């Protein structure tokens, strides 16, 4: 190492340190943009509340979501039971709070399941094209011809109920949405100059996927996840409603609406509060999804 090199390096380090102080990180910029969207911010707060509740559910309530009390059934909201009790004398609020966990679990698992499959197939199909692409895209065409709920219902009807089966049934169709989006994104990235530039400096295929395509697909994927999450929540609650979803006694909102609908006349608080809980969460995610889509997409003209 020559001294000149060392001097260059020192100078560079100084330079960089100065700049780093001045500027804010990319994530922070995205946050700034995101924050500007009021609804997105509201959504963010809503989802934060949901996450908080999910994390601390046991601390927020003295009751057990599964402890039935046959002699306290269908009690109207009161000081002891803020949202009343359900048909088994369980505290509705407690079940709502714990239901947050189930909802998030289902939502996250579905999104994870379909996202992983969809995004990886989308990448493969988009990047390698050819036969793989044709097969994947025909598969997508086929599966997308079936309404999610209907296919999921048929599958769950056959496989039996339960959280896992709901997730699998939803995922079998759900991944296609990701695959399509990611694929088209990748097709455009693949054609971009910077990928061609990467090839021209000798990057390997794996490296191109890893360093160039994936990071640029990430925003799309994140937005997709935020948009698909509410869809997954609604769909899984619909399956519960149709009797092929999550089983009781799981504190699942869909099942709560489903069970509570029979008491709509004399104990409306059960299904109403569960319905509102779903709405709250889904609304939050939808707002976030909308906001993120704008915040992560620098091409949208901002006025």
């Amino acid at each position, binding site marked *: 190492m020559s001294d000149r090199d060392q001097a260059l390096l020192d100078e560079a380090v100084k330079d960089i340190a100065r700049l780093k102080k001045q500027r804010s990180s990319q994530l922070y910029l995205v946050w700034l943009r995101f924050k500007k969207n009021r609804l997105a911010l509201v959504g963010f707060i809503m989802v934060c509340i949901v996450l908080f509740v999910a994390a601390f559910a046991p601390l927020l309530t003295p009751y057990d979501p599964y402890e039935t009390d046959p002699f306290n059934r269908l009690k109207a909201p009161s000081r002891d039971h803020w949202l009343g009790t359900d048909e088994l004398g369980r505290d509705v609020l407690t079940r709502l709070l714990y239901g947050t966990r189930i909802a998030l679990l289902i939502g996250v698992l579905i999104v994870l399941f379909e996202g992983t499959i969809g995004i990886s197939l989308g990448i493969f199909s988009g990047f390698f094209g050819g036969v793989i692409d044709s097969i994947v895209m*025909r598969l997508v065409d086929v599966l997308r011809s079936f*309404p999610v709920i209907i296919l999921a219902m048929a599958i769950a*009807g056959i496989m039996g109920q339960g959280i896992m089966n709901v997730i699998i049934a939803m995922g079998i169709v759900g991944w296609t949405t990701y695959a399509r989006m990611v694929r088209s994104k990748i097709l455009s990235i693949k054609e971009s100059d910077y990928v061609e530039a990467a090839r021209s400096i000798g990057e390997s295929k794996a490296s191109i996927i890893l360093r160039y395509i994936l990071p640029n697909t990430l925003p799309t994927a994140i937005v997709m996840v935020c948009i698909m999450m509410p869809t997954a929540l609604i769909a899984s609650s619909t399956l519960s409603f149709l009797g092929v979803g999550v089983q009781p006694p799981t504190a699942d909102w869909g099942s709560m609406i489903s069970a509570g609908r029979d008491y709509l006349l004399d104990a409306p608080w059960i299904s109403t509060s569960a319905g509102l809980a779903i709405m709250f969460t889904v609304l939050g995610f939808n707002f976030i999804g909308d906001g993120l889509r704008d915040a992560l997409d620098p091409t949208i003209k901002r006025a």
Partner: protein
Amino acid sequence: MAGRKRSFWIRRIVRTLVTAFGVSLVAFLILHLTPGDPAKIMLGPYASEAAYEAIRERYHLNEPLPLQYLYWISGVFRGDLGDSIRYNRPVLELIKDRIGPTLALMGSALFISITLGIFLGIVAAIKRNTPIDYFATFQAVFWLSIPPFWLGILFLYIFGLQLRWVPIGGMVGFTSLIFPALTIGLRDEAWFARPMRAEMLEVLNQDYIKAVKAKGLKYSSVIVKHALRNALIPMITMIALRLPWVIGGSVVVEVVFSWGGLGSFLVSSVLARDYPVVQAILLLIAMLVVVANLVADLLYSVIDPRIRKES
């Protein structure tokens, strides 16, 4: 060029056929990939051996799978979708009885969602970043966030029971169509309003809009004649793409509103393990979607001169 166009259509039709084949395969396999004996699944565990044998005979369950598929699909082509186990009647007949109500419901739901969605999309785009726009966005997200079955129950409760405006459930005249159609339509409206807004904004940003304005055309003509026409064309595909969701939404809504269509039929058939019916409805709905996509492409190419006339 005619040749190019023909080859495009040939490829598009081949694609549709491949998809249709895949769709039929999925509908077929739904029953056959399930662990267990399909005959047992269909009849339950307590039927007589003779009954099982009859079912195996009827659906060729003793043959190898590919052959079974061929039997089934050739039956489909002959209009023989099998017999309902529950009703002991040809599935086709049962479906014929129920497809009308479903089409009526879907039709009105689509009508609501498309007109409302497109209208709100346009207004939101024109009044961009005004309270009207925010409201349009908000209401779209709002409808999307309500579980449809719950919305249906609420509608019934409020407008059927409390206000007595409409009959509760069943299919008694036009009034009983309103709320099931609204339940699906409002939700799906969001799926059209948002793309429509985006599409409209995109079009409004185009130079040719500026150009027709620069020509001195009236604002209303600019919007109606130029912007709308351009923004609507991509919506054709959008609508076809959303079709499965509209149908999917109608399933649960049909149940809630006791609407005697294919959706509630499917649900009860799944629960009753009436598999010939389940297969047939799955096939029918999916084929409807496949065809709708093809028609959308066709329409698109008829309406959009960029595809229509090749120099």
